[in-house]
């Protein structure tokens, strides 16, 4: 939590989080990250830097991968928010485990959310998932443990589902 984001008067906001409609009374600039982690106790979304550099707080808003630390609650009003706790991550989770892509685990939720966003974009746009594509998609998610090889392989495996 950062003071300035919470300095204005609370307003009522409606969000759909992981399929459930939630009505909250929060300061409009409160970071979506704090809304998720503190108000909704969805702590799977991690804070690594608070300034949009590490990708640990990646969530989906209306299907797009965005950073919860740079999203004001009012900017997400009425949107569909999906976090790592939500449905639809089964394949990516399995691939991450099988490839040894999770070590300390702090970047893992953000990586998995980003992987899903990329996999869905590949399917939607009919783009063949490749290692280079995965590297470009995951370039905003920092990992200090793995050297990325296992993560990229897990992402490609995830996205290849449904491709011949």
């Amino acid at each position: 939590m950062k003071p300035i984001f919470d300095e204005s008067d609370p307003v009522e906001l409606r969000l759909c989080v992981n399929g459930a409609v939630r009505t909250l009374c929060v300061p409009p600039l409160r970071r979506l990250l704090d809304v998720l982690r503190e108000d909704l106790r969805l702590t799977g979304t991690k804070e690594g830097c608070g300034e949009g550099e590490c990708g640990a707080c990646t969530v989906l808003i209306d299907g797009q991968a965005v950073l919860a630390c740079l999203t004001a609650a009012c900017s997400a009003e009425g949107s569909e928010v999906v976090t790592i706790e939500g449905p639809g991550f089964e394949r990516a989770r399995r691939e991450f485990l099988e490839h040894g892509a999770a070590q300390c685990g702090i970047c893992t939720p953000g990586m998995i959310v980003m992987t899903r966003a990329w996999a869905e974009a590949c399917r939607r746009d009919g783009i063949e998932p490749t290692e280079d594509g995965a590297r470009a998609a995951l370039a905003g998610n920092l990992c200090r443990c793995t050297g990325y090889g296992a993560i990229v392989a897990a992402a490609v495996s995830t996205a290849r589902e449904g491709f011949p």
Partner: protein
Amino acid sequence: MRVVVARSIDAALAALASATEASRILAGGTDLCVEFESGRTRPDLVVEVGRVAELRFVRETQAGLEIGAGSTCADLLRSAPVARGADLLALAAREVGAVQIQNRATLGGNLVTASPAADLVPALFALGARVRLASLAGRRELLVEEFVTGYRATARRPDELVESVVIPPRPAGEHRAFHKVGTRRAQSISKVVVALALGPRGAGARIAAGSVAERTLRLATLEAALARGLARERLAQAVAHAVALDTRPRDDVRSTARYRRAVLERVLVRVLGPWLEPEGNAA
């Protein structure tokens, strides 16, 4: 601090009517939320325009390509008209942050933040873009170089909203290039960024550079030399002269003034060289 969530241009303009120098417009949040986080900004009023649908469009008009200020970098990357008419903008958008940032960062935000290291702004300079501003008092249009006035400073009045940017039609035979040297290959802030456009025989050159002065700028001295039909053999010397005259790089946490000057020169020579005629062939 007051926060107004606007869902239309009219609502945003109404809210901005009472804005002061300390007020801020929140679009994608990728700059402003970082400023909040660092304590750099403590606004009296924040007008949130992130989901004003009227600000998010790309349309081809007689004046050229008009792009709504709320268009995100991802929008620019996906747009076929942008790829055709404003390719530099797409090349620059690819260099902004990483995917999550590109999904939120807006064209208008990059302009209004007016960071000297901005990636989209040099592309707009090189494209000769015009900036359309609106307020309750009316609308006006500025050349992008007139819009960006200094270090994180613009000609926008507190009550104005950047509505769109207009890119003039692409002249026939114009060469264009974009080159960024950053701290790493993604999610990086530029040490030097160059966007340029060059007509046949040096006509209509627009050479823009970022991170080499307190604001994005055009290398007027080099443009003039090119317009005079600079020969390839004289390029390096002309570039060195222009960089010395037109830029004001500084040492900072990302790089040094010496490096910035040297790399700007080398990048310009590398990009422009193949487009110039050798001596004798030159006009």
